[in-house]
């Protein structure tokens, strides 16, 4: 019984934090005020200041997590709606995504070698731009740690969305096709959620990038590791 109340409180609390996030994002519509970026720290600060362990919060958080799978499935609908536009763009969209996936793995590898990062951390870092489940599988299959891989996926996702408006302003790309591919292949589903807030077309493009790059990363990581390590 008690667990149910904790769960309900966790869900309601998350909804309140999300609404604060939405409010802030409406007021200052830039990428580092994206709802997930504003709401998550509020949840964490709340839990820390009342000494509530993450595991207790997750009694209710797990209920929300249950909907993560269907939420990813739902991305098929805008993709379907924009398909007549998107299918004409197959070559540009796929090329950008594949280049992005390769750059993500290769640059992660080079920077890690340069910074003397090795062992389990090294393998957990490489697949960071893929969606969580893929990244964890790839990392573990090479000798990385699943939960550590998930943290790097978060850095690519949340961190990527946070810096995206700044990075795009400084270095481009400027149009919604380029930005959709950029954010979708760099920041997977969290990036797609943020692209969806800009426009449905940009969101659908990011969806394609997310799906293709999940597959590409899972092939490129073991390949590059085999060749260079």
């Amino acid at each position: 019984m008690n667990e149910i109340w904790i769960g309900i409180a966790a869900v309601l609390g998350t909804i309140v934090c999300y609404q604060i996030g939405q409010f802030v994002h409406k007021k200052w519509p830039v990428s580092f005020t994206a709802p997930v970026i504003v709401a998550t720290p509020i949840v964490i600060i709340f839990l820390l200041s009342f000494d509530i362990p993450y595991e207790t919060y997750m009694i209710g958080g797990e209920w929300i997590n249950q909907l993560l799978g269907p939420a990813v499935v739902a991305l098929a609908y805008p993709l379907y709606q924009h398909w007549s536009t998107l299918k004409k763009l197959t070559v540009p969209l796929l090329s950008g995504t594949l280049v992005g996936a390769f750059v993500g793995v290769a640059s992660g590898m080079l920077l890690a070698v340069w910074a003397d990062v090795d062992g389990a951390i090294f393998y957990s870092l490489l697949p960071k731009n893929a969606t969580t489940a893929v990244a964890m599988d790839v990392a573990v299959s090479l000798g990385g740690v699943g939960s550590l891989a998930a943290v790097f996926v978060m850095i690519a996702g949340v961190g990527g969305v946070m810096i995206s408006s700044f990075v795009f302003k400084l270095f481009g790309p400027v149009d919604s096709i380029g930005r959709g591919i950029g954010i979708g292949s760099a920041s997977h589903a969290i990036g797609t959620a943020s692209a969806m807030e800009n426009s449905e077309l940009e969101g659908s493009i990011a969806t394609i990038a997310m799906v293709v790059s999940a597959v590409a990363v899972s092939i490129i990581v073991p390949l590059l590791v085999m060749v260079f390590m």
Partner: protein
Amino acid sequence: MLKFFTVAFHIAVLYIIFIAGTWIQQLFNLFIPGSVIGLVLLFTLLISGVLKVQWIEAGTAFIIKHLAFFFIPVTAGVMNYFDLFAGKGVVLILIGLISTALVMVTGGHVSQALMRRREAEHE
């Protein structure tokens, strides 16, 4: 109230497709997660006309409008890893961010450049 039930029903349909995706993943021992297989599955069902848009429309619109919400609990899990971010962890975060920024810029520019070249050819 009717709208609430429509949305709930549509989300249930999405959930079934997600479960189907997970089954396919386990059956063929695939490395692609069940949710992504479900995405491709739903897309195929819609394109082929097997599943009518009316069956999922309201639920998908609702979920996509609030997509960010569903990522809050998972993301809050970072709080268990604050230790990692001390000391050398900062370097790891920087590596992650720089490499992610590179993906954004290179991938995006390749698509944009190919698009523009195509548009120029058509003119």
